[in-house]
């Protein structure tokens, strides 16, 4: 049977991890359909129909789908589920919020945050903050799976020509009302997909000092990350948190500045290709995962780093 991918979007555009989830879905079966639930989401539905791997798009529209309330989305998917062996979404806050609601309604034991499809019923997933990996096999007839986006390549956004079908909306769930969303707008690369990430930790000592991180990120065309300690201390907003309960990033280059490297933080970044750690405590656990460790006072090292980069002038964009 076919695989149903739940598209994530903002009613105008697809959110980037939809492309990674499409790839993961294609590892399970060739016949991947995608459902897009939203309000005036024509453009996003069209973009979805052009993705590599997608054979059919199902578009479901209603005003109350505008803000992605899981209580409204779940019944739509449950109604479609009869025709599918697998339901797939990303294991980001969108999919984490939604998928268990679907799985419970289908009486299926969900498999969260997979990093590999071993067989259509067998998956690899990290447990204990990535300090162990479990190979798990689902015995349920229908499988609800969320995928770790950074473990699957984004599919091509062109080349597909799926048909777009409309399906009926489900009843509105009136006991949950969306109030507002405060998104942090930025011209920087997205943390989850950036080629370079510069992260600051408790060692930054203040929100003001985070300017050093910003300058370095500007220079490297990087996204800005942070440890939980830095977010808790109010140095930077929550959407920058990297770690077990924040975001998982796998950039080509991860620069950890003033981050000690608690296992909960390492869980979110230790798969990065090249890791740099700048910390004045030579015993900090971050050095155990760093390819290049610099034991130094960050308030001296980061300005020097900027100077050296200025000399190079060959930063890859």
């Amino acid at each position: 049977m076919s695989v149903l991918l739940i598209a994530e979007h903002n009613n105008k555009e697809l959110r980037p991890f939809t492309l990674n989830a499409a790839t993961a879905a294609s590892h399970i079966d060739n016949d991947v359909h995608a459902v897009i639930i939203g309000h005036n989401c024509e453009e996003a539905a069209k973009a979805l129909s052009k993705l590599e791997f997608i054979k059919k798009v199902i578009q479901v529209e209603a005003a109350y789908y505008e803000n992605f309330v899981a209580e409204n989305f779940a019944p739509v998917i449950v109604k479609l589920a009869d025709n599918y062996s697998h339901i797939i979404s990303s294991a980001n806050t969108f999919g984490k919020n939604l998928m268990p609601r679907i799985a419970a309604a289908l009486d299926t034991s969900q498999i969260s945050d997979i990093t590999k499809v071993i067989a259509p019923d067998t998956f690899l997933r990290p447990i204990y903050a990535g300090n162990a990996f479990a190979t798990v096999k689902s015995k349920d007839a229908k499988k609800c799976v969320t995928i770790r986006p950074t473990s699957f390549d984004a599919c091509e956004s062109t080349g597909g020509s799926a048909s777009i079908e409309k399906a009926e909306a489900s009843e509105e769930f009136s006991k949950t009302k969306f109030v507002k969303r405060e998104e942090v707008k930025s011209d920087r690369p997205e943390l989850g997909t950036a080629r370079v990430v510069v992260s600051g930790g408790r060692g930054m000592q203040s929100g003001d000092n985070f300017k050093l991180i910003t300058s370095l990120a500007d220079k490297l065309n990087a996204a800005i990350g942070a440890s939980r300690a830095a977010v808790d201390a109010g140095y930077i907003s929550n959407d920058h948190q990297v770690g077990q309960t924040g975001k998982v990033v796998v950039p080509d280059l991860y620069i950890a500045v003033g981050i000690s490297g608690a296992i909960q933080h390492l869980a979110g970044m230790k798969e990065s290709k090249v890791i740099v750690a700048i910390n004045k405590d030579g015993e900090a656990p971050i050095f155990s995962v760093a390819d290049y460790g610099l034991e130094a006072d960050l308030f001296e090292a980061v300005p020097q780093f900027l100077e050296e980069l200025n000399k190079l002038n060959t930063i890859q964009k």
Partner: protein
Amino acid sequence: MKILVAVKRVIDYNVQIRVKEDNSGVVTDNVKMSTNPPDDNAIEEAVKIKEAGKATEVVAVSIGEEKAQETVRKALAVGADRGILVKTEGVVEPLSVSKLLQKIVEKEKPDLVFMGKQAIDDDCNQTGQMLSALLNWPQATFASKIEIKDGKLEVTREIDEGLETIEINVPAIVTCDLRLNEPRYASLPNIMKAKKKPIEQLNASDLGVDISPRIEQIKVEEPPKRKAGIKVSSVSELVQKLKNEAKVI
């Protein structure tokens, strides 16, 4: 208003876990166990709401082996009024946990159910959402702020893009983020008092729920080890290595 708080006993967050040699799981013998960290936030929030005069009773429930009683006892020591332990053996998947919690909710009739957003052992992040689906209640996941307003809750949720605020009717489920509050430590007198608070013990089989696993754990392995790195002595050496050796800038 009555608040039910679900708490899970897990390997302490500071422990570096080890995979068993036969790859059947992780070593739990003689390992320090604690309350799942965001469950501490869930208890704290419930107790704060009660202290503010907006709740009349806080009930802590745990599902797990006999020793999970310690986790319930800790919740009682920080201010929960009474406890429930549903005894189970072996792995209990989030779907089963939510079915057991559903039975407890039907019996206890709480107005709110709080729990951590994720357990730090299996990292599933499912139970709260599943319970709300089974009860057809509203869900507010990843909560970093909760305000009670005329029988409704206004909840700020941490999402990938920033923050989202939703308003939900009671009864409802809230899953708590670590930033929701600062959990208190239990004082010695309160630990002593907690010993006298009642904990009702039930067996999962008494609740008439099939909790047999649907997922077979084939093996558990260590993650691939990173190649040992080097220490550089200066920023210019670092930049040279990044440019010429790693070729990432």
